[in-house]
């Protein structure tokens, strides 16, 4: 037993573990003598999401959609321009709530296995011990926890503790990344493209491990990925992002079974076919994901949407409940003025 105990549950199962409201993050782009650029990357705009205790919320989208920015906002590696966050009932970074440091005890992140996800100058043990020691755990207890963590992720402690990152394969490094995220016994783990850089056979191993760890440690996951198949496999609910906004949100069966937003439909059909007799005949949409610097007015997807009409350019569709899921599309909002909408 050590002194750095996991944080207790407050508020019970009905209270969302994490609730983020109206998050906004814009990045200035170059130019200007004092760094005051004229252009702005609108990475995340007025985003509201909630993560229920014990669920896996999947976040999908292509480059420029802002999903990585969302991850960094939720763990406060970036400070939002606007918006609030509430963790299990406690407001974050506000006078009567918890501090950002306390947030980080409960919310951790697994990074993509890039060559720079682990400090090349530190041994695995030193990397894993860093966070607990920074929170006051004595060295001897930290050593025990490191061994415990390595065993949990399937790496034999005696073999791996004193190794350096360059001596490990991609899959092994990613296990270390996961162990590092678990070092503070968090409640919510944000996985930002955590399996994207891995070979498929290794990806399967790591996915199995993530599922086991979730049950064993009562974790909640926010799983961000561009790989729709993996998101479908892991998630309970799925959130689809496009250019800094949520376009569709709902239970995984609803999103994958009856996608309502044209972008979601396009994403799903863009997956390569696994059946050579049923090859894709036509690309679901043309063109590239646009630049988040100057997003289109109104509905941001309208420039690639085959059903775009006047109202789409004038009015931004709000995220609206339609049965099992929520969609931000005029076609699904009654009385919006779109020809395909209900009157």
């Amino acid at each position, binding site marked *: 037993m050590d002194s750095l105990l996991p944080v207790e549950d407050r508020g019970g199962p009905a209270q969302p573990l994490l609730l983020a409201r109206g998050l906004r993050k814009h990045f200035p782009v170059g130019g200007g003598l004092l760094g005051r650029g004229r252009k702005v990357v609108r990475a995340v705009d007025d985003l509201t999401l909630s993560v229920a205790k014990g669920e896996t919320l999947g976040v999908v989208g292509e480059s420029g959609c802002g999903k990585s920015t969302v991850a960094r906002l939720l763990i406060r590696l970036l400070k939002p321009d606007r918006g609030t966050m509430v963790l299990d009932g406690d407001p974050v970074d506000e006078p009567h709530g918890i501090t950002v440091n306390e947030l980080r005890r409960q919310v951790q992140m697994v990074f993509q296995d890039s060559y720079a996800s682990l400090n090349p100058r530190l041994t695995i043990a030193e990397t894993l011990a860093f966070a607990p020691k920074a929170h006051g755990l004595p060295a001897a207890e930290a050593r025990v926890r490191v061994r415990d963590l390595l065993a949990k992720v399937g790496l034999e402690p005696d073999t791996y503790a004193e190794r350096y990152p360059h001596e490990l394969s991609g899959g092994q490094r990613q296990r270390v990344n996961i162990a590092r995220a678990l070092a503070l016994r968090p409640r919510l783990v944000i996985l930002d493209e955590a399996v994207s850089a891995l070979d498929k*056979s290794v990806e399967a191993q790591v996915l199995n491990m993530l599922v086991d760890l979730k049950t064993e440690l009562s974790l909640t996951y926010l799983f961000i990925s561009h790989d729709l198949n993996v998101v479908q496999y892991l998630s309970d609910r799925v959130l689809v992002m496009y250019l800094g906004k949520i376009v569709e949100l709902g239970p995984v069966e609803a999103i994958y079974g009856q996608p309502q937003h044209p972008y979601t439909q396009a994403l799903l059909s863009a997956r390569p076919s696994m059946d050579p007799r049923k090859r894709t005949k036509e690309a679901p949409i043309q063109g590239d994901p646009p630049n988040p610097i100057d997003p289109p007015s109104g509905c941001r997807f309208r420039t690639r949407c085959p059903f775009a009409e006047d109202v789409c350019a004038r009015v931004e569709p709000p995220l609206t409940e339609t049965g099992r899921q929520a969609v931000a599309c005029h076609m699904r909002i009654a009385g919006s003025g779109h020809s395909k909408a209900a009157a």
Partner: protein
Amino acid sequence: MSNLLEVRDLHVAFVTPDRTVHAVNGVSFDLRRGETLGILGESGSGKSVTLRSILRLHPEHRTRWSGSIRVEGDEVLDMGPRALGDLRGQRVAMIFQEPATAFDPVFTIGHQIAETVQRHAGKSEADAYKRARELLEMVRIPSPAQRLKAYPHEMSGGMRQRAMIALALSCNPSLLLADEPTTALDATVQIQVLLLIRELQREFDLGVIFVTHDIGVAVEVSDRIGVMYAGKIVELAGVEQMVDAPQHPYSRGLLASTVHDGMRGQRLEAIPGAPPDLGEVPTGCSFAPRCKFVRPDCVAAPPDLRATGQSHLVRCVLAA
């Protein structure tokens, strides 16, 4: 119909003072015009090294190779610099994973394509630019006339990849080598590029070798699929046979562990362990340490590629 490409018993090793990496350990296959061969493998399988060997793109002083690579009957491994210069870009073209680094950032796209056309086809500058514009149209780049004057960094990833395809096809090659060209692209762009490659292949009757680690991508573009592991082809079959009835334990493991529709709720069948260190020449079957069906004769000697049915080759003692 004679073969466009014949590779026989290719061995490629990289020698450094510290160690020797045996990247390719005996690869053989053929390719005809109008056919796409998908090479499927994970990192360290030797798929990219095989591809690059066809154009001899490896640093000469560090590379040791043996075997034979014949393009339209000519032996690539014997070619001198002049012959190689004619081969590259003109008879055989290649597209890469990262289009940003394939283009020179200080010249416009139009300039780079026109330059290639001028060099290989000997056309005048005006004609070369005209041809460049035709090529950009062919790869479905919108507003091709303006794009001729664009710099690589001004284009999106998908657009750059299309421009790279245009560059590759500028001199009417008969063989196109594609090294994971869609891996770095978003899903909606990836499918567009895959369809484009399929269409261009039909139109120009190209032979295409498409290297990828993604089974879905391989299935979309290939007529035949070769699965590589630890520097060898372990299975080679028509795409339908490979998907319906893979025979090598690695291929089966790969297909079983790839996440797709309808696997939700089931535990994934993961292949245990990791690919072998290529520092030593394999003595037995390279996959034996990870294989569910391993037997004593697997470790004794490396198995040969054997035919099991019509044009289905498997490198496993259990097959046939």
